[in-house]
């Protein structure tokens, strides 16, 4: 009982000695007074004892509070690992609810270096069970002062049992999420992939993260996939597979260095399928970042060739300066712009009407139409069609088009037939969709959406009559022009080929083509747009050595329509629609009689 008092008497004066010896002496006298055994001194003595005990209890309470608020050992591990453990991600489904990406649980081994007694022994035992671990690296990891290090991520249940049997203190397991893509390379470029920490690195996976998933995880929420709402894409897995299958076969047959394709719903702007070859397996994305594995639909920019003539014709018709019966002379077969000469590819030398310009893919006709509108008008139209700016979709990867720095008459002339302006193919099909769907331009999307939602974001870019004219000329081209290869009976296909010579070292290479084929199904009321692209296809025996778009893209698109149309629910009709293009018939356009 005297113990606390003595300490009190010992420590209190020491603190005071320096500043006031006089008060110290008086304090000592007072203390001596207190301890003198006598009845009347009881009051201050009791007071002092109360003080001491109060101090003691305050100290105990303080310590308790400290223990309660400070995290204990168990919580410490959780905190240390919460940044390291891979986060949960929502499932990604296709438009019919098939799984495209999901989380599965796996177990990872971790260690707490501070708790491991014999680090050398632990290293030895662990490397014996997990032979693909680097012993030196592991020893260095265990030698650190950290509270938490990973030993190995994603081990098998058998390895887990073996590590468990070792019974090393300070080594434990944590359940983790691993991203799994059951369909392998199908839709790889759309899905992208997630890294070992389950953070989206590319494609829709990255898009999901950018929508606030990482913040959720940071706040400690959403650690289970079941807490998260699945993401439903516009992709149709079956059609995606068909597209990939046909392109893989085509690439082999035409000996192309790359291929790409897309199917789009022109009424909603949804991308139903998108393939770019060569692709990668998102389960093992080691080669995903190689240069030739880019998403050619979105990240590559190309001169789209004659496909652009559709845009030129739409512009000319919509401006009112040209109508469907206007004629253009192609006499001479060439045009001169300063030092440059532009030739006809399939020269006819005749005077052509607008549908004939399209069917014969006349460069001169297109140039004359573009020049009728003028350079500024041409620029404004392409701007309106979103061809001059980077197009951003949900996919984080995108490329800006290559637009001529100084846009003169010669540029308008070449861009009129698809050279001199390089755009992303996805951008081009968005524009072509607008030309045929009645004139509504909408940004392509990879998320499922209804037609009402699509119409809310759509802008009218051309008149419905112009759209009908475009559908008409595409159908004529499918019926008797260069798109015949894709004219599968029953589906009323319309299309346009596009062959551009590739630029090698600043010159157009005669023998290296970049071919595109665009088709719409069915032409009288288009629902789907098909696109097939080949990079440097070669001629083959049946094609007579030709490597132009009809002989590769056209063939592939034909097969594609045959296989995909039933999946997409397009009903074949063997008697042609009674009056598919009423306005064109009324105007007596070329080919209606």
């Amino acid at each position, binding site marked *: 009982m005297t113990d606390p008092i003595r300490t009190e008497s010992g420590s209190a004066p020491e603190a005071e000695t320096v500043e006031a010896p006089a008060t110290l002496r008086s304090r000592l006298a007072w203390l001596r007074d207190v301890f003198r055994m006598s009845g009347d001194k009881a009051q201050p003595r009791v007071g002092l004892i109360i003080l001491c005990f109060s101090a003691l209890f305050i100290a105990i309470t303080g310590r308790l509070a400290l223990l309660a608020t400070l995290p204990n050992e168990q919580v410490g591990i959780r905190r240390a690992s919460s940044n390291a453990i891979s986060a949960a991600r929502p499932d990604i489904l296709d438009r019919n609810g*098939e*799984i495209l990406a*999901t*989380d*599965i*649980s796996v177990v990872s081994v971790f260690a707490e270096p501070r708790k491991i007694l014999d680090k050398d022994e632990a290293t030895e035992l662990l490397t014996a069970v997990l032979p693909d671990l680097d012993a030196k690296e592991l020893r260095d990891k265990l030698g650190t002062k950290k509270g938490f290090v990973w030993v190995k991520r994603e081990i098998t249940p058998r390895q887990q049992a073996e590590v468990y049997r070792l019974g090393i203190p300070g080594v434990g397991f944590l359940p983790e999420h691993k991203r*799994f893509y*059951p*369909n*392998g390379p*199908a839709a790889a470029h759309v899905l992208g992939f997630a890294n070992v920490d389950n953070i989206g690195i590319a494609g829709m996976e990255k898009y999901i993260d950018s929508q606030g998933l990482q913040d959720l995880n940071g706040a400690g929420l959403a650690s289970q*996939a*079941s807490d998260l709402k699945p993401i439903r894409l516009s992709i149709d*897995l*079956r059609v*995606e*597979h*068909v597209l990939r*299958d046909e392109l893989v076969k085509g690439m082999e047959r035409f000996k192309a260095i790359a291929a790409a394709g897309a199917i789009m719903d022109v009424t909603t702007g949804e991308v139903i399928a998108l393939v770019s070859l060569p692709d990668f397996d998102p389960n093992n994305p080691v080669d995903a970042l190689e240069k030739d594995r880019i998403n050619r639909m979105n990240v590559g920019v190309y001169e789209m060739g004659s496909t652009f003539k559709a845009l030129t014709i739409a512009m000319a018709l919509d401006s009112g300066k040209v109508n469907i019966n206007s004629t253009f002379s192609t006499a001479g077969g060439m045009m001169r712009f300063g030092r440059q000469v532009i030739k006809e590819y399939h020269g006819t030398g005749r005077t052509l009407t607008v549908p004939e310009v399209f069917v014969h893919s006349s460069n001169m006709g297109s140039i004359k139409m573009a020049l009728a509108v003028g350079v500024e008008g041409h620029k404004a139209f392409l701007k309106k069609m979103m061809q001059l700016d980077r197009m951003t979709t949900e996919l984080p990867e995108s490329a800006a088009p290559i637009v001529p720095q100084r846009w003169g008459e010669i540029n308008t002339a070449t861009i009129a037939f698809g050279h001199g302006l390089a755009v992303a193919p996805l951008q081009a099909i968005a524009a072509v969709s607008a030309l045929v769907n009645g004139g509504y331009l909408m940004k392509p999307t990879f998320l499922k959406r209804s037609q009402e939602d699509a119409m809310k974001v759509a802008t009218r870019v051309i008149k419905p009559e112009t759209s009908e004219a475009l559908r008409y000329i595409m159908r004529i081209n499918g019926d008797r022009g260069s798109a015949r290869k894709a004219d*599968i*009976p*029953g*589906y009323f296909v319309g299309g346009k080929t596009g062959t551009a010579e590739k630029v090698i070292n600043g010159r157009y290479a005669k023998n290296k083509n970049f071919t595109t084929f665009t088709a719409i199904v069915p032409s009288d009321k288009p629902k789907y747009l098909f696109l097939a692209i080949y990079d440097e296809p070669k001629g083959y025996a049946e094609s007579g050595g030709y490597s132009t778009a009809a002989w590769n893209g056209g063939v592939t698109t034909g097969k594609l329509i*045959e*296989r995909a*149309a*039933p999946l997409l629910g397009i*009903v*074949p009709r*063997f008697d042609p629609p009674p009056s598919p293009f009423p306005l064109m018939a009324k105007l007596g356009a070329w080919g209606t009689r």
Partner: protein
Amino acid sequence: MIKFLHVIAIGALVSSAVYAYTIKYETTLATEHLQKLRSKTQRERDAIQVLKAEWQFLNRPDRLQTLADRHLDLQPFQATQVVKPSEIPNRGPKVDAIGRKLEDLGLGLPTETPRSAKTSATTPGAMP
């Protein structure tokens, strides 16, 4: 009297303590049970997730196509195979094929059947 009160008080104290401990242990037990069930549902959920992924993995179009090519002799779908409901022909008039055949054989006449049960000697009737 005082002693009796003491006994009652002590008894009450002991029984309340026992009751409190029972409750406490029951709670602990229930918590444990809950924890077990939770981890069990979690395991089941994980298993479902894995099975779903496996199902999709086995049903991936790529694999199905390879298997179909190898084991089935089905033809690819042709557009001409699609028929609209309106194009399905109406069912023809009902033809009694067996009856016609019988007629051709000269067996078309109705079989003679006995008019009443009384005249029939062969049919075993109910004995009175």
